[in-house]
């Protein structure tokens, strides 16, 4: 065994070859890539109208409008289907309230429920309502190049800086032109692949921001479960009315 290792090392030295995953000087730094991704995907304020389709044993479609402020605050209202219409959610920090007009009931959801799939989807409240920067939470390295749907991308491996980060590891293919993660594999602490998140139909917005208008989340834990999100309207850097981020807004008719 020792001898074979010695032979392999000598061979590498003789050929002057670099290790397979050594960074190419022409490649951008992983930090730079994460910064560009964060610039695209996070915004201090935002408004979105989206349609979410949950495919599984039965397919369900929801339409909602959402407002975001900073990394953690968000408010959302369901526009369709009729059964859910008027249901509102408010997330302030790690707390979430849901108002259901049908039963005129305001319910506070405890912290761990934030990680539950929203309306049985593969997207958690936290996934959709938070807008957290990757740079502060992950250490990254570029491990190679790849293509997703014919678009060249950087293969970026992100490892959580501390144990509290939701996904311990992400492997992303970051579009070389738009810096959008076209495909992200999200892993558990154990190393099990949990979800594959793909983004497409990237559009340009003010300030050079690129943002995908379609996302697909495939859950690898629940077989045959796919959630598709299509953003119908997107606005960034808007003045969100203060009253939206209050409990009064939830119960307002």
């Amino acid at each position, binding site marked *: 065994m020792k001898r074979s290792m010695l032979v392999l090392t000598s061979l590498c030295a003789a050929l002057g070859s670099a290790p397979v995953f050594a960074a190419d000087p022409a490649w951008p730094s992983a930090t730079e890539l994460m910064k560009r991704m964060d610039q695209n995907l996070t915004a201090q304020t935002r408004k979105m109208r989206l349609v979410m389709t949950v495919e599984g044993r039965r397919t369900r479609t929801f339409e909602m409008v959402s407002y975001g402020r900073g990394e953690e605050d968000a408010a959302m209202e369901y526009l369709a289907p009729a059964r859910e219409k008027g249901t509102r959610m408010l997330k302030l920090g790690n707390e979430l309230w849901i108002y259901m007009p049908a039963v005129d009931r305001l319910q506070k959801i*405890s912290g*761990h429920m934030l990680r539950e799939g929203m309306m049985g989807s593969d997207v958690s409240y936290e996934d959709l309502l938070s807008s957290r920067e990757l740079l502060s939470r992950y250490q990254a390295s570029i491990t190679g190049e790849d293509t997703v749907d014919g678009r060249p991308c950087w293969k970026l491996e992100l490892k959580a800086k501390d144990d*509290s980060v939701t996904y311990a590891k992400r492997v992303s293919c970051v579009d070389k032109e738009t810096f959008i993660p076209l495909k992200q594999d999200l892993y558990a*602490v154990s190393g099990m692949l949990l979800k594959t998140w793909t983004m497409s139909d990237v559009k340009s917005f003010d300030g050079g921001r690129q943002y995908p208008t379609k996302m697909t989340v495939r859950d690898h*834990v*629940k077989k045959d*479960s796919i959630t598709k999100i299509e953003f119908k309207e997107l606005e960034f850097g808007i003045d969100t009315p203060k009253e939206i981020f209050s409990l009064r807004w939830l119960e307002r008719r």
Partner: protein
Amino acid sequence: MGTTSKLAARNLLRSPRRTLMTAISLVAGVGIFILGDGFVSGMTENVIVAAIDGTVGHVQLRPKGYPTQPGQHPIDRLVTLTPEAKALLDREAVAWTGRTVFAPLAAHGPDSVRVMAVGYEPERDVSVFPRDLWKVEGALPAPGRDEVAVAPRVARLLQLKVGDPFVLQVRTHQGAINALQVTVAGILRTGNAELDALAVLMPARLAHRLIASELPSHISVRLRHRDDAEGFAEKLRAVAGPDVEVVTWVGETANLVHIQQVRRKALNGVMFILMALAAFGVANTILMAAHERIREIGTLRSMGMTERGVLRLFVTEGALIGLAGSALGALWGGWLVSYWSRHPIDFSEIFEKAAKGTLNASALIYTHFDGRVVLASIAVGVVVAVVASLYPARVAARMVPAEAVRAP
């Protein structure tokens, strides 16, 4: 008195059907009361035993402010024993053990369900939580392997069989998502409705890997007698530290026991109504007997029987109906209660469907047989019958002998 009793018995047997009909109301009243009391007492005891033997122990330590709503098992805070608390447990408890309770998502194919995972210490757990009622299809999970035992309802919902793999996905103690593929070593029925509906049991080591912490969420304590719980809890509170709350089976079962007390009151109400109906029946029977036997009363009075003697005769008739009815009712109710106190009724399926894991009670309902309740019920039946027969007996006793003899 002997003659009066014989006369009364003979009179009752003259109209056996009427006597029987009157006695049946007493049989029903006494029997239903004994049955109801047996069930209510049994349920109360079942609730207590299920908590002690299934989830709480006599005394339990858990993080301060731990939620009490069903289905909530956060693990953001866990229990660390202070050296003083550990010394107290080692010194005074019969046994103690740590359990890690959390709420992972269990997924098998396209199906998923939120379950109640219980990580137990394989060697210590059994000394706090007895396994007399456990029934396992397959085997209990082997320590050191990624194996679990699942509750029958979880197995049904996820279509799991022994040997099937499935995934448990959970947030770690720190907050990251973790997931592991585990194998069903066995399908376990514990007799505790909450566990049988939602539980996935696993050795602590596997639970610790899933939540990325070796600390338990609960420490349960077994004492020599359950009545020692409150006193021991006081001592434990003094040394357990500020981040831990100490609870006992008394507090943990208080709500369900209160429901049983309400049921007992309702049962007493039913007993009152049934006894009132029985009293009406007895009074009516004795009154009819008095009117039918006017001439006989006249003859008895003519032969020297006093008013008091007639009164005694009719009251004795009421007492005999009361005694016979109550004794039959006590025999019927007491036998059933006694039988079910030894052979429990299995409510597992009903509890699983109706309560869906929100009820921390044993699904095997034993009734509670108490001889004092049986004797008291007979006594109440006799007293009711005697009191009910007083008025018709007075009517009979006050008849004028000459008029009574001439009566048609």
